[in-house]
């Protein structure tokens, strides 16, 4: 019911959404989220995403299982890339499906909030001026209190 993929390769969000939707019997609502590399300050050459092989898959599977316990989902999908990504590239996506829209929306937001702060990924920004690790944002940690 839950599918987790951690990969260096690009993915096709639209194709993944269609494939996911087609397997969700009884779902009336499908929600997707796609995260994209943004060049916030200007001058970003690439984002490098490091992760903890082995733990990453387990941590995400645990978050997906938690979501499935909280909401009556027909399924959930998480794809997260690692390695070097250029501005505009898709970093990750989440899809959730449920009989009703509120459950699908809430579960997708829950997955995103937990992936931000509880899945072992670290982002490094490579700019013309040098490289720097992206600091965790307090608002992302605070977002977990909602659930």
């Amino acid at each position, binding site marked *: 019911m839950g599918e987790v993929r951690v990969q260096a390769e690009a993915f096709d969000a639209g194709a993944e959404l269609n494939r996911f939707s087609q397997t969700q019997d009884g779902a009336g609502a499908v929600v997707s989220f796609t995260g994209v590399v943004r060049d916030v300050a200007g001058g970003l050459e690439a984002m490098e995403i490091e992760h903890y092989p082995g733990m990453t898959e387990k941590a995400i599977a645990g978050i997906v299982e938690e979501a499935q316990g909280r909401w009556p989902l027909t399924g959930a999908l998480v794809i997260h890339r690692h390695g070097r990504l250029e501005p505009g590239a898709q970093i990750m996506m989440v899809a959730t499906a449920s009989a009703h829209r509120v459950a699908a929306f809430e579960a997708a937001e829950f997955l995103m909030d937990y992936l*931000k*702060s509880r899945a*072992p990924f670290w982002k490094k920004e490579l700019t013309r001026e040098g490289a720097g690790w992206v600091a965790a944002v307090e608002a*992302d940690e605070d977002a977990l209190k909602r659930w």
Partner: protein
Amino acid sequence: MTVDVLYFAWVRERIGVPKETVQTEAATVAGLVEELRAREPRYAAAFEDVSALRVALDQELSDFDAPLEGVREVAFFPPMTGG
């Protein structure tokens, strides 16, 4: 006892290696951190402020008070920034 110690992100960069095997007598994660800090300045720099760090034991998030007994893999890293 012997544990594999893994470092990620800037912790890895400060210490200079992604992984090493460590011989330790420490009873807790905090004890292990003390031993590492005493080794060399690069460790002292990486572990300067443990409140800025997170730890996983055998690939599960844990905390610095946790006992080390039976643990095979300890990982130190900054707060995660996924998504």
